């Protein structure tokens, strides 16, 4: 009886921890990028990609990516946010994030749709651009995820 009680308690503990594990959002880089690659076809070719792993903290945080583009060429920015347990904002600026004169060319919050996890942006003018990820504050412990960015070009 005593052993049964120990086994039951152990099983219950494991079930709880397993349930929490199941709630984690999957973050498999190659799968997230594979979905984006399909959206390059037929006109765009793969240029480069970046996986950004996000840790949500008690204070809001930001990180960014500098993306060099060549004048006069066409580009497609693709984001896959399926690996995020909680929304973040994605903004693309024409100048450094620290610049007072920067202009936001794209903001995820303006185009976000329920249930949609892939978003694209095609700049009108090609020059160096800056992607900024804004991670909201959270009280939840160990909340993590990732966002995939993939760039395509058309000459």
């Amino acid at each position: 009886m005593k052993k049964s009680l120990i086994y039951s308690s152990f099983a219950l503990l494991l079930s709880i921890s397993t349930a929490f594990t199941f709630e984690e959002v999957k973050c498999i880089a190659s799968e997230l990028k594979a979905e984006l690659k399909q959206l390059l076809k037929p006109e765009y070719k793969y240029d480069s990609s970046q996986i950004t792993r996000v840790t949500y903290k008690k204070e809001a945080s930001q990180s960014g990516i500098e993306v060099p583009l060549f004048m006069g060429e066409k580009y497609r920015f693709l984001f896959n946010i399926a690996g995020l347990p909680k929304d973040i904002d994605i903004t693309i600026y024409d100048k450094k994030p620290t610049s007072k004169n920067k202009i936001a060319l794209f903001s995820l919050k303006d185009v976000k749709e329920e249930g949609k996890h892939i978003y694209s942006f095609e700049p009108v003018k090609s020059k160096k651009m800056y992607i900024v990820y804004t991670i909201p504050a959270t009280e939840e412990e160990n909340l993590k995820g990732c966002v995939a960015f993939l760039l395509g070009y058309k000459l």
Partner: protein
Amino acid sequence: MKINIISIVFICFVFAACEDSTTEEPIENETTIEATSDKIQQEESLSYMLPSPLQIAEIFKNSGLNFVGDLTNPKEKIASYNTKYNQKLNFGIYSADMAYCIINNQTQPAIDYLHNLKQLSEKLWMTDIFNSMGLSKRLESNIGNHDSLTIIMADLQILLDDYLVDNGMGYTGPIIFAGAWIETMYLGAEVNKTNSNEKLIYRLSEQAVVLDNLIKALTQADEDNDFTELITDLKKIDAHFDVLETNEDAVLTESQINDLSILIAQVRNKIIQ
């Protein structure tokens, strides 16, 4: 009853173990958000994208980069690259040479360079890139088909990027790109000597933005100070672009391009020797 409880425990273990292996995968060139401020104030919170060497080669090609024989690094030189550092840099050099051959319909040399890349990938433990998708066979069966070869080259870039991320080798990407960038610039500057035109000079000048990102990416990846000499060399090249800083649409003059090409050739020769 006891058996049933043990079974539940076992199943829980199995699920937990399986879940653990699929939700997390090692990513070393990831950008981890650690900053606690709500503004990006420091360069450390930025990461730096590098374009595909194929894109640069195609842009140069559209601006007059024609094929000149004997400019590329001889394939036989592969035997002299014995350190991991040299192998990575020359993986980039040969990638650029392959792209140059493909965009100029030089398919046999392109295949030769692909074989070199395969050999270097074996030395660098990146064999899976070439084994998956049967790239060698695809290349050989598409001899003369420029568009197919370009797609194959683009696929190779995807596989390389994925492989480096999946195997925690993100720091290798900027080194390989450094080799590819130096070689593409060398080819562009050399061709410009015999076939100079405004478009090509503009495109060579425009590479300042890529070099800026390359130096920053290498510096971030250089935790053990292995790339210090290369970074110093690249900064010397970067200094030649300083004249453009006042105007983003400015281009280098003919003499500035000549000075740049001398320095590029010096750095390139140091890498391929």
